[in-house]
């Protein structure tokens, strides 16, 4: 059953916004910041609220064969809780599968997650579990989709440099424990944070216990309703210089502050009703 792969691979999409969007915050004294302080500002960005987004992922294998996943997502911030609801639009065999997540911004508290499997007419509770599994078969994994717990990493500001004409900080993140390396799936990362808006526009991940790297590259960054949103990102898995797999993630029809996105939407009732 393919639904089981969803069980083991889906992650909150509200968290997705964390990766893709950010508010414009002009740093006052950028040179004085440490790697940790910069990451705190990245995590503290306004990623938008009461959002509706359509997402497409194009998965491309090393032979160039493509697969496409389409989703519609809803997101809401409620205090220390991020609520998200997403529905699969394609491929056909998982259409109308729904996923509901309550992501708590409290250390040690697991997310609440439910998956609705239309073929079984059943809603299933999901363990938040391991975050190293692939997200829908893409090159991203769970931990790529969530805001990192900063206390679990050591951050080092390596240098200031430029990416595509933009000034960025180059920061190295190393998990403090083996457990975090295993759970996140990465033994270390280097990220490039734009100095003008604290958006991560590039990142390199070292895959835990594999000689592979993942390259995250934001190709399109748009300002929507005053919020910076990455509307296209390419994620490439490489072994040395050899490309193993690639994912192009796109977001479109992004809307914030929608009245229909209220707390009632993020319920088992709506999960089972579908779009």
């Amino acid at each position, binding site marked *: *059953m*393919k639904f*089981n*792969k969803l069980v*083991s*691979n889906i992650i909150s999409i509200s968290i997705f916004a964390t990766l893709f969007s950010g508010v414009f915050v002009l740093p006052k004294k950028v040179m004085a910041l440490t790697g940790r302080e910069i990451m705190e500002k990245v995590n503290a960005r306004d990623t938008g609220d009461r959002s509706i987004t*359509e*997402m497409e992922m194009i998965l491309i*294998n090393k032979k*160039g*064969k493509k*697969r496409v996943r*389409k989703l*519609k997502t809803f997101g809401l911030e409620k205090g220390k809780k991020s609520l998200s609801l997403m529905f699969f*639009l*394609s*491929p*056909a*065999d998982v259409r109308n599968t729904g996923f509901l997540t309550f992501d*708590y911004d409290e250390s040690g508290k*697991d997310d*609440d997650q*439910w998956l609705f499997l239309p*073929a079984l*007419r*059943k809603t*299933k*509770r999901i*363990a*938040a*579990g*391991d975050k190293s*599994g*692939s997200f*829908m*078969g893409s090159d991203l*994994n769970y931990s790529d989709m969530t805001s990192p717990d900063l206390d679990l990493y050591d951050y080092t500001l390596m240098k200031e440099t430029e990416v595509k004409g933009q000034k960025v900080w180059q920061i*190295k993140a*190393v998990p403090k*424990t083996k457990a975090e*390396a295993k759970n996140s799936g990465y*033994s*270390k990362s*280097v990220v490039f944070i734009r100095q003008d808006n604290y958006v991560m526009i590039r990142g*390199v991940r*070292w895959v*835990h*216990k594999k000689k592979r*790297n993942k*390259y995250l590259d934001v*190709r399109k960054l748009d300002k929507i309703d005053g919020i910076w949103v990455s509307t*296209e990102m*390419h994620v*490439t898995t490489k072994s040395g210089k050899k490309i193993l*797999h690639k994912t*192009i993630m*796109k977001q*479109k029809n992004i809307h914030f502050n929608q009245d229909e996105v209220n707390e009632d939407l993020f319920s*088992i*009732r709506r999960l089972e009703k579908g779009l």
Partner: protein
Amino acid sequence: MIMTEFQSFKISKFERVDPDSFSGLVFFIIPYFFVLIFVLGIPDVILAQETSEDDGLEAVLSGFDDEGSDEDEALSGFDEGSTELLSWDVDADGERKSGVDDESWSNLSGNTGLSLSYSYVKEKPVDKTGADWSGMTKLRPYFSLTWDAKLGENWKTRISGKAFYDLAYGMKDREIFSEEVLNELEKEVELREIYLEGSPFGSLDIKLGKQIVAWGVANSLRVVDVLNPTDSREFGMTDLEDVRLPIAMTKLDYYIGDLKLEAVVVHEIKFNKSAPIGSDFNPSTQRINEVIQESSTENTEYGLAVFGSFSGWDASLHWAQYFDDTPHIKITKVTIIPGIGAVPTFEQRHSRLTMGGVTLSIPSGNFLWKAEAAKLQGMEFALVTDKLFSRTDVLVGSEYSGWSDTSLTLEFGVQHLNDFDIKLEESPDSQLEDRIATTVSFMQDYINQTMHLNLFGMMIGKNGQDGGLNRMSLEYDVMDAFSVTGGAMLYQPGGNDYFQSLNENDRIFFEARYSF
């Protein structure tokens, strides 16, 4: 797939076996899984423990000063500009044709494909007195279609159907197969779900028509999931999504905060589809009349449930009054035949049962713990007719998802027949006071989730002494809409008659499916 086949722990009709006998199944299932995993050699999560990357991890944890050259090389690995984009055949402007589908008011979906199975154990009958269940046992093109439509803001409807024709019978001596087999297994055209659902006001939802209501938290065994009958014609071979049979119901759901109150009225009396007499899953030659209640007001079935979804746990309470989908045997007449003795006449009947149950599921880290319990009252048997029996069913299980792209599930269930009477051990009741079932499921995805391994094992009895089955399959997504699956099903005979009758039913299977 397996779940409904095992409804009511089908062993209820099995002969009791010597409790000291030991099939060794428990020692078979687990090594079987791990041998397969290692033979396939793909699960990085497990094998990675042996890789040289361990040393790299230690280095990471102790600092990265010595890895400068590695980093520099990695950081130079970005693909600049649009050239690389074009090489992937993706438009550089990012606004290619790949928009998300518009939501329309009407949608047609479904799948079509070919399903086949091959029995490699059974031998062809030497004469034409028996049906040939050797070799190709299924060659079945199938087609499934579902139409969904939105009717205004708050209402929608669904009509779905399924059809198949099995070519395997025409490839053999078709006339030798029993009429029941040909009627049940050679062809089928079936309307499945036909319903209207909507929200007439506020917190109330209503759903009218042929539908499926799935209760319970278990994957493989059923305790409180009692409302829909099941397709049990091929034990262990039916797809999970096809196992429950839709029946005419009215369902009302009312929401209060984190609670859902559910009331179900079942208007249609329909029982399990069981293996037709003379099939390879029912080699019996004795035809026993089955009494099927009319779908009338008097026979209406009812269900009530309360579901709670809370932070850190879910729970539900269930009550139902219904007819047992699995029949019991009743002796309707005893005829004395000189020289032979007393010859009973049997009839299959369905008891009116009352069920009260509870479920619980608690996620904790990489584990999901779950439990179900229920008490069923009103059970009838052939050999003790002066009272009704009750049964207590308990299930506990756990799902582990701590390995990448992997899920491991263990479920353990017990059915305890209360106030057990030793007479019930005899045929035709063939009951046990305690019936035990254990299932293990291992699923793992590979190659960016284009390949899916699924291993399933079930054993009946404390140590597997009453039989079981093992199923392994590998599915590959050739493309988004098209997948192929191959696998094998192995039945373990154990010590009871039913599984012994399946002993030669081992088979390999294959399916090609196109979804749209």
